[in-house]
């Protein structure tokens, strides 16, 4: 009995994440109840911390699509697409006076275009994804800087977008950021439907599992892979709107400042059980992994005062990732396979 549970937790990433999530949240709630934290770790705070969730999860879903499509699929350029599309969106909505909805559609279309460049190079010309998206990362982030000579756009219409980042009350004093409801939830649902319910989703898993067998099964491998990259670009385009709203300004380095958004997105995807070799990965795992990281970070900030707190966040991320990989290795050795 105990060993069945252990086996389930070790071999099913989603279960493992749920357990970890419960442990982490429980741990901080406990600390909070004993007054060890600088402020209560409560529903309200958990809700507030979710402001970071939409970009993280959305880009991790973009990576899910691309990584699952296999053959070394990965997209290092998502952050650069966010930067570049953010500037395009900023120009349209903030300077040319486009209304919000057309501007958002433009952002989605432009992001998809950037993704299609990656997809074209990878799927039709056969470039390795790591190198291709490294190259377009340089190109897109450079264009994002050039497009307005490195000036951020923060006109009134852009500043008004901040309502999207604002929390709306849900239950009691728990409030969730509007962007979570307006952008994240629909994206999660759509990506889940795409992967789990459509023929295209089946094709993505098929080409990710075995490129050659997919070709021999009559699947249009190149088109499927091309669309995976394009969809990742589209999602990145939507993230550009979210970050622009969150910072009340379209910044040319929105997705590339610091470590950029791509590495965290890949980290979340992998933590969520996406196999870097392709063919394996679920939306639920990615969402849970992002929740785990966001709430762990939020808890650390309350538990450890001063600079040490922010420094520990990075370390914790590395540790969680190594631990997840170790558990995976253990499970594979002990039980054969992992999903």
């Amino acid at each position, binding site marked *: 009995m105990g060993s069945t549970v252990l086996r389930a937790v070790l071999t099913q990433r989603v279960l493992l994440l749920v357990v970890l999530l419960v442990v982490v949240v429980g741990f901080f709630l406990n600390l909070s109840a004993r007054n*060890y934290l*600088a*402020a209560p770790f409560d529903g*309200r*705070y958990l809700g507030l911390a979710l*402001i970071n969730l939409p970009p993280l999860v959305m880009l991790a879903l973009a990576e899910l699509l691309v990584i699952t499509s296999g053959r070394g699929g990965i997209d290092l350029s998502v952050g650069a697409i966010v930067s570049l599309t953010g500037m395009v969106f900023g120009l349209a909505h903030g300077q040319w006076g486009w209304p919000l909805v057309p501007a958002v559609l433009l952002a989605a279309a432009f992001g998809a275009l950037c993704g299609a460049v990656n997809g074209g190079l990878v799927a039709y010309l056969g470039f390795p994804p790591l190198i291709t998206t490294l190259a377009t990362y340089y190109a897109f982030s450079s264009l994002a800087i050039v497009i307005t000579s490195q000036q951020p756009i923060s006109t009134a219409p852009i*500043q008004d977008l901040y309502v999207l980042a604002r929390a709306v009350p849900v239950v009691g004093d728990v409030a969730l950021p509007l962007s979570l409801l307006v952008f994240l939830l629909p994206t999660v649902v759509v990506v889940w439907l795409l992967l789990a319910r459509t023929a295209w989703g089946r094709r993505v898993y098929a080409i990710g599992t075995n490129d050659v067998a997919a070709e021999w099964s009559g699947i249009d491998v190149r088109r499927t892979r091309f669309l995976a990259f394009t969809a990742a670009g589209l999602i990145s385009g939507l993230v550009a709107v979210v970050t622009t709203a969150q910072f009340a*300004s379209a910044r040319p380095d929105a997705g590339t400042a610091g*470590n950029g958004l791509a590495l965290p997105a890949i980290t979340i995807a992998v933590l969520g059980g996406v196999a870097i070799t392709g063919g394996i990965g679920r939306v639920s795992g990615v969402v849970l992994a992002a929740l785990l990281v966001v709430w762990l970070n939020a808890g650390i900030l309350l538990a450890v005062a001063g600079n040490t707190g*922010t420094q520990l966040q990075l370390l914790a991320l590395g540790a969680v990732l190594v631990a997840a990989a170790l558990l995976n290795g253990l499970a594979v050795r002990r039980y054969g396979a992992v999903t």
Partner: protein
Amino acid sequence: GTGSGGSAPAGDGGASGSSGGGGGDVPSVAFVPKLQGVPYFEAMNTGGQAACEEIGCEWLYQGPVEADAAAQSDVVRSFVQQGVDALVVAPNDPDSISPLLQQAADAGIAVATSDTDAPDSVREVFVEQASTEGIGEGLTDALMEAMGGSGKYAIVSCGETAQNLNAWIEVQRSYTAEAYPDAEIVDVVYAGEDQARATQLATDLMNANPDLTGLVGECTSSAPGVAQAVRDAGRIGEVSTVGLGTPQAMLPYLEDGSSSAAILWDVEALGYLTAYAGTQLAAGEGFDDLSAVTDTYPDVTYDDATKTLLLGPPLRITADNAGDYDY
């Protein structure tokens, strides 16, 4: 307490030793720098701690590991949750911080900016290190002294969107044109808060403009950066540099002449003033009576129109007086 921070009372004197919240008997003042670890902000931290011991406040200091608007807003949000009494921010991106300051104010927290302003925000006061004119003109005068009042020079600035840096650069432009007609600014480049990048850009500028004779490092990471570049290129004496640098960081460059002067202010004093401003705001008091600080820092003034608390005129740091400061 003024905080509306959650249903449960915030921890008083918990094991973490940093009780936030409005439950304590002294007001808590939180300061969020642009970036942790740089000597400049750590010196502000020292000044702030000293102030709180003196005037009775609880000083909280936490900075992001990246000079990045997103990383900074996480820290700000955590302080809002902690329900501190006063929150002072040196914003990386004023546009991005404004809505967050609004949220803090909505939560009943007194908000202020220090070092860098967010003019369009709801901040109740901006703690300014020196007047924009004072710094811009001080930098220009110091450089012109070294360059003999003429020649081409370039500026290596830091954050593209840092409002204070951009304002100083504007002053440098107009003041140079007006007071030194034989001098010319050929370029302004942005290195972020990254010393290596500043060195790189300064080297590139010297290579690209062989007749360049002056460089300005506009912030505490680019001031040593440009001096480093001149030193690396072996062009000490040919290219003069000045910058906004902290004394200890600049000392070696000042000594070997790769930097002629650093323009700065007493950074610990700025930290002190920041803690003071936070405490005043937390107590719901204004800045009509400055006697509490003018004993220690006599040049402090308050301008009600711009809601700016000014530390005083800038310092010029040279090889002679740099050793007097231990940051």
